[in-house]
Each structure stands twice: as structure tokens, then as C-alpha cells.
């Protein structure tokens, strides 16, 4: 909690900002806002890469073994652009890896966490700026190693993003397991180190650096989402890191943690053994189930803030919302086994995980009802960020409900590893989180760059993406209904799935167009950065503390000492004339 007076504070930092030169200011910056933007830009670039990888998958499912025009040579590397079967497994592996570890996690925690936490709680920066800078620069070894893995002998990893041994451990089991998997593990460790440095910093900052008057229950939901996410990261990540090291040792030192006795593949007999392939799955999902929440809680927080702002109405059920994310965080650690119902795990254990999983649906339901409650009786302004936020609610209903099928163990026997699952997690992660991130970019862009994005083009971008994503992902439910398995390069030589080709072609064409439509966003983003209308401090008439700082905020963030009087959701309060009541505005004198 800073006690410096306003003028000393801002004067002091104005010097810093210009003293360092280009390299200190924009590259190796200690400023949380610059670091946040660095995360944002690198995530958006990887988002593009991950999208291209998805196009390869969709091409193969629509036109199996036909040479892929334009992208084929780049993605598949084989003659004439035909996607070889081993390259198809590489595409699914790397699409998921890139989207999860290089896009969603860094864009939520890295970009928005960094940019928003100090601004929303009234701090001048993160608690440990150097750690913050390192958390970004540890991503680069990961980027380089993962990028390089495409070019080593055998190509990038092919064991799925879940990297189940023995496929991922025995070098001869798949071309991608030759070298690519080793690089995959090294890159993931780097991402882990980066996330860990970030989360320690976030927790400390949120606990220690809040402005006077900013009590925990006056924090915006975004901050609650980031806070709980940081806790989840800190407790779950060490397990993944340790498991990754064990797999690395299995591969390079012959330890055999995850190999049964006499393990063999492709005529190569492994000397090591005595381990258990299922052990990896337990360790992996002990991290990766909480990671699902790491990938959605911050998005839920940002959506809550946007909904309340543009409904011009207080957030419905603030405390139940906070308690539900707390509940999700707690339960999130005892449901990992729902990924393993048919893995060979003790079926008795399956029942336990099933009950816990059913219960974790409850906090999500509570949150959804509260979002609807927020809209009820408001005065909704249909701005671009609001449309994305509402679409998050609408899409999360689908992604949440389809999860119940998987939690029901007997049904999961049938739909496990089918397109039903693919539909489910794309509704959560793409239709949910990615749409929330788009909304958040449109919403906080004025704070980031001091200029507004074009609202009309934003709406065009929204409407097209919204319609197309549903055309892409909703039919995947009925694909899964037939048992259509995921990760199959050519499913059509099974009698059961032969009639699904036309539907897959429809999905693929919608996906191609959807990726193309994102050009509208890219142009709008860069054009507005330089030529958008000036935003001013508070273009949306929001209550949040970040909107009281200059746009963009200078080094040190606030040009006054923030004093907080109330929570961030006092829209339409009878105490004031205007329909908003900023957190820093003193109550009217009696």
C-alpha cells in the first residue's frame, strides 16, 4: 500500500519512463502494462499458428488424403501437400499444445492478469517487477524450443497434448517421439516456470498492494478470477513439472517410471520397466483438470465486469459468485479422475470421481444464473464487448451442460474420446474463453492504447464469428453421438462413420471461413492502435478503478493517490445523479 503523495509519485515515475531508452521501455521492461502487452502480442501470434494447425486437421477430415492447397506443404511437409498420417497426429498434438500453453493460459494470466491487476487494485506495479519481466522472458525459450521441434528428425511431438506413455516415452513408438517429445517436455517446463513466477507475483500483489479502502470484497470479479487462478497454478503446477521431469528421465535416462516390465514398441525392447503408464495420467490430470479452470476463471471474471458495466446495473450476487469460484478451486483438485473413467483405473474410484464431478457443475450453474440475474431489469447497451460477454454466457451454458454427459460414467464409456468431448471443450475454451478474450480486448483496448476500436467493425467481427463458431462446433455433438472418435486421420473406412463425411465437410468450410473472418479483427486492432478516436479516461462510464487512470496509464499508473469508497458494481445507484458511481468518488457530503 503506497503512501506517497500524488505529485511526488507521478513526477518520480515520469522520469523513469523515458530514462531507459527503447530497450528498457519496450523490450526488457519492468512495467506490468508493457509486459502484459508483450504477452498479448505473443499470444495473438501463436493463436494464428494454432488456427493454421486446426485448418490442417479440418482439411484432412473433409478431404482425406487429398493434397491440401496453399498450406499443405507448410503444415505437412510431405510431397504435394498431402497430409501424412503421422503428420495428422502431429497436427492434433500441436494444435492443442499451442492453444492451451501458448495462447489461452498466457493471454488470460499473462496479458490480462499483468495489465489489469495493478490497475484494478490501485497499485503502481506488481510486487516484484523483475520476476514479472522474467515470467515473460521464460516464455521465449519455450517458444523457440517448441517451434524448433517442428524441424528436428521425426518432427514435433505426436503423442497428443496429453502425452500418454508409452507412446510418448518409447522413442520408436512414433516419429514424433524420437526427438520432438523431448523438446515438447523442455518447452512445457519453461512455460511452467513462467506461470509459477507469474502466479507467485499475482498472489503477493493482490494480497499486499491494494490501495487504501480496497478490501477483498470490493475487488472486481476479474481480480478474484486471477487470484484463484494464481492459487490453482501454484498448487497444481509443481505436479506437472515433476511428472514432466519423470517422463524426460524415462526418455533420456531409461528410468521407466511410466513403463511396465518388458515394454516394447515397433520391435524396440526397453531395458527399463517396473513402472505404470497410468501413473502419468494421474499426475498429468492432477494439473490439467485444475488447468481447465485456470483457462476459464479469469474469463468468467472479465465477463462479469463487462456484463455489469453495459447492463448499467450492479452485478447480481457478488458474494455467491466469489464463493462459487472458491468452490470450483477446492473441488477442482478432486475430480481429475473423470478423464480416466475408461483408462483402466479402479472402477470404484471412478464412482468417487463421478460424484465429485457432478458437484463441481454446481458452482458453474450458480454463476450462470447470476449472470442472467445481472441482465434482468438493466439497460443493456449493445457494444462490441457486451456482445462478446453475452455470447460467453450463452455458449458457456452449452459447454457446461454437455459436461454432465461426461460426468455420467456409463455414458462416458461411450462418448469418451469421441467428438462429443471435442465439442464440449471447444464450447468451453473457444466459444467461452476465446470469445471472452475478444470481448476483453475490445473493452480494455482504450485503456491499453488510449484509443477506441471501431465498434461497427467489431460488431461485424462478432456476428460472423458467433454464427460460424456454432456451425463449426455444435454439429460436433451429433458426430460424437454416433461415436465418431477424435484424432483419427481417416475415420471413413469404418462402416459406422462412413455417412459422416458431408457433415465434416460442412464443418470444415465453416472453420475455414471463420479463420478468414479474423482478418477483420486484426485490421481493426492495428488500425485503431494508431488511428482510432482518442478514448479519454473512462469511455464506457465504468466504475472500475482502472478507468480513473489516464489512458494509457503512465509509469506508476495513477496520477493521484487512489482512495476506494465502494465496490466496482455501483451502477444506477440512487446516491448519485449519473448512472455510475466510480470506486474513487467520495460519497456526497451530508
Amino acid at each position, binding site marked *: 500500500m503506497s503512501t506517497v503523495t500524488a505529485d511526488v509519485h507521478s513526477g518520480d515515475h515520469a522520469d523513469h519512463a523515458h530514462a531507459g531508452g527503447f530497450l528498457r521501455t519496450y523490450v526488457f521492461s519492468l512495467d506490468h502494462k508493457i509486459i502484459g502487452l508483450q504477452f498479448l502480442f505473443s499470444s495473438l501470434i501463436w493463436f494464428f499458428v494454432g488456427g493454421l494447425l486446426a485448418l490442417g486437421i479440418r482439411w484432412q477430415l473433409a478431404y482425406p488424403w487429398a493434397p491440401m492447397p496453399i498450406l499443405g506443404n507448410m503444415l505437412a511437409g510431405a510431397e504435394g501437400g498431402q497430409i501424412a*498420417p*503421422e503428420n495428422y497426429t502431429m497436427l492434433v498434438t500441436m494444435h492443442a499444445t499451442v492453444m492451451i500453453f501458448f495462447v489461452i493460459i498466457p493471454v488470460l494470466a499473462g496479458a490480462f492478469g499483468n495489465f489489469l491487476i495493478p490497475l484494478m487494485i490501485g497499485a503502481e506495479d506488481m510486487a516484484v517487477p523483475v520476476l514479472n519481466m522474467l515470467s515473460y522472458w521464460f516464455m521465449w525459450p519455450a517458444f523457440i524450443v517448441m517451434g524448433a521441434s517442428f524441424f528436428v528428425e521425426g518432427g514435433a511431438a*505426436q503423442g497428443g497434448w496429453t502425452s*500418454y506413455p*508409452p*507412446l510418448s516415452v*518409447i522413442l520408436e513408438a512414433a516419429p514424433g517421439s524420437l526427438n520432438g517429445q523431448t523438446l515438447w517436455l523442455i518447452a512445457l517446463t519453461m512455460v511452467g516456470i513462467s506461470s509459477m513466477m507469474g502466479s507467485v507475483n499475482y498472489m503477493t500483489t493482490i494480497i499486499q498492494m491494494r490501495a487504501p479502502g480496497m478490501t477483498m470484497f470490493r475487488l472486481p470479479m476479474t481480480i478474484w478470477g486471477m487470484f484463484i487462478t494464481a492459487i490453482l497454478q501454484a498448487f497444481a503446477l509443481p505436479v506437472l513439472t515433476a511428472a514432466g521431469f519423470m517422463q524426460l528421465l524415462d526418455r533420456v535416462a531409461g528410468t521407466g517410471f511410466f513403463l*511396465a516390465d*518388458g*515394454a*516394447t*514398441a515397433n520391435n524396440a525392447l526397453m531395458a527399463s*520397466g517396473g513402472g505404470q*503408464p*497410468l501413473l502419468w495420467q494421474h499426475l498429468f490430470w492432477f494439473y490439467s483438470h485444475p488447468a481447465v479452470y485456470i483457462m476459464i476463471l479469469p474469463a468468467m471474471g472479465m465477463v462479469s465486469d463487462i456484463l455489469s458495466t453495459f447492463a*448499467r446495473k*450492479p*452485478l*447480481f*450476487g457478488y458474494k*455467491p459468485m466469489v464463493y462459487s469460484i472458491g468452490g470450483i478451486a477446492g473441488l477442482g483438485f478432486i475430480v481429475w479422475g473423470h478423464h480416466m473413467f475408461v483408462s*483402466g483405473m479402479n*472402477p470404484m474410484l471412478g464412482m468417487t470421481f*463421478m*460424484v465429485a464431478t*457432478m458437484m463441481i*457443475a454446481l458452482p458453474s450453474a*450458480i454463476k450462470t444464473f*447470476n449472470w*442472467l440475474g445481472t*441482465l434482468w431489469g*438493466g*439497460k*443493456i*447497451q*449493445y457494444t462490441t464487448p457486451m456482445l462478446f460477454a*453475452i455470447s460467453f*454466457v*450463452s455458449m458457456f*451454458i*452449452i459447454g457446461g451442460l454437455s459436461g*454432465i*454427459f461426461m460426468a*455420467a460414467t*456409463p*455414458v462416458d*464409456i461411450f462418448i469418451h474420446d469421441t467428438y462429443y468431448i471435442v465439442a464440449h471443450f471447444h464450447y468451453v475454451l473457444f466459444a467461452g474463453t476465446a470469445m471472452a478474450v475478444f470481448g476483453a480486448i475490445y473493452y480494455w483496448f482504450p485503456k491499453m492504447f488510449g484509443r477506441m476500436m471501431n465498434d461497427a467493425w467489431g460488431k461485424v467481427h462478432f456476428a460472423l464469428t458467433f454464427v460460424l463458431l456454432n456451425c463449426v462446433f*455444435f454439429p460436433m*455433438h*451429433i*458426430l460424437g*453421438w*454416433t*461415436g465418431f*472418435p477424435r484424432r*483419427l486421420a481417416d475415420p471413413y473406412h469404418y*462402416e459406422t462413420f462412413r*455417412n459422416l463425411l458431408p457433415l465434416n465437410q460442412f464443418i470444415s468450410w465453416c472453420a475455414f471461413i471463420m479463420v478468414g473472418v479474423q482478418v477483420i479483427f486484426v485490421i481493426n486492432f492495428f488500425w485503431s492502435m494508431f488511428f482510432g478516436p482518442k478514448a479519454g479516461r473512462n469511455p464506457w462510464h465504468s466504475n472500475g478503478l482502472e478507468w480513473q487512470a489516464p489512458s494509457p496509464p503512465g509509469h506508476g499508473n495513477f496520477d493521484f493517490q487512489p482512495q476506494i469508497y465502494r465496490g466496482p*458494481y455501483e451502477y444506477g445507484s440512487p446516491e448519485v445523479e449519473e*448512472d455510475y458511481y466510480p470506486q474513487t468518488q467520495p460519497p456526497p457530503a451530508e
Partner: protein
Amino acid sequence: MKRFWSLLFLLVPIGGVATFLVAPYFNIVLPRDVSVHGRVIDNLFMFILYLTGAVFIVTELVLFYFMWKYDAKSNSKPVKYSHGSHSLEIVWTILPAVTLLFIAIYQMDAWATAKMNPPNIKPHAEVTGRQFNWDFRYPGGDDELYTEDDIVRTDGKLYLPVDEDILLKITSADVLHSFFLPNLRLKQDVVPGMTQSMWFKAKKTGGYDIVCAELCGWGHYKMKGRVFFLPREEYDQKILEMAAEQNTMRVDLPDEDE
């Protein structure tokens, strides 16, 4: 504009319901169920589909209605300055909690039948997944696996009697695979070093797909098999035939690489 945006969101429940209603006309449905226990799983699937479908339609319609009604331009009333409602929170906590708990308990039987209570019989065959083939070993005349007269087949065709309890031992020779029988609503990952069981009873004769449902390498997509359910006499005949074939082919025990 409120018309446009709220109607756009109304497309979600309409399109969602329409997709599931139209799919059967294109034969996109649960594959034909030929097992005795499969109906329980299908009923559970449909039960959850109707239940979540109802919740889906109601919540999406509420969202549409709010978007329509509370548009800033047409709603002249002041906003409801409300921070929430205790009684509502309690209602929408308890209702889903009870429903979810009900589903959890309701399905336990089906799970136990499929995965926890194997019939007390000798295995009809051993299934081994290997990159990229399903191998089958039948016990032969003495009904015991791993003896001299075992029949080992690597042609990806599994023959079993219809209308009888079937017990299979399943395992893997190399990496993970998953033994998936869509028409019997059964799936079980096979793990090297672990021998597991799978049991069921088929009620229709004919040939059905065996699908590998766990990524196992570049040839995962072609790791295909067929299971044939035969009337008892035909089945016995087939076993004799395969035994005779094996004797002329002089296949070495215990197993052979292709």
C-alpha cells in the same frame, strides 16, 4: 438493433434443438445397439439429453427475453438497483444440487454392471492391441487360455456366440489403445502390463466395427477390427475351422509377429 442482437442469440436454442431433431434423418444417431446392457446406457444418455436440453432451452430463452426487454433504448424504466437475492440464490443452488446428485446416484447401477461385476465364466478370447492391429487368441478345445491348442488370429476378426454371456481378457502389447465397440456401448483402454476384463451379451447376429479409440501412433486411424456374433452352432463350427487352419499353417506359440 436490439431486435437483431436478441434474435441472433435466439438462433442458439433454435439451431441447437434443430440439429438434434434433423440428425436422425441423415442417419446421424447412436449406432444400432446390439447388446443387452446397451439400452440402459442409451436411456441414460437420452434422459440427460432431455434434462440438459430443457435447461438449455429455458436458460437461452430467458437470455433472449432479457436482451429483448431490457435494451437501453427501449427500456424507459430506471434500472433495478439490486445486488442479488438470497432466496433466489438458495433456490438455484438447491435445485441443481438435487438434480445432479440424483443423476449421480441413478447411474451407479449401470456403471457397476458394465465395469464392476464380471460374470463368473471362463474367457472366450484374449484381445491384444498392438500397433496397429487387434490380435485375438481363443482357448481352443480345452477352454483354457495359454495352452497348446490355443488359436491365435491376427486378421482383426473376432468371432463370438450371440445371446450368451461373453468374457474377454484385454491387454496391450506395446502402447495404449482403446478397445471400442460402438454397437455394444463399450470402451476400455488397454494398457501394457495390465490384463483387464470386458463382458457383455450380444442380442443380434452380424458383423460390427471394432474401433481403436486411444491415440496409438501414426497408424491409429487404420487400427480397425470386426466382431462377428454367430449362433452357437455356427460359432462352434467357426472355432473348429480356425483350429484346423492353424494346424496346417503351423503357427508358433505363444505369439507371432506379423
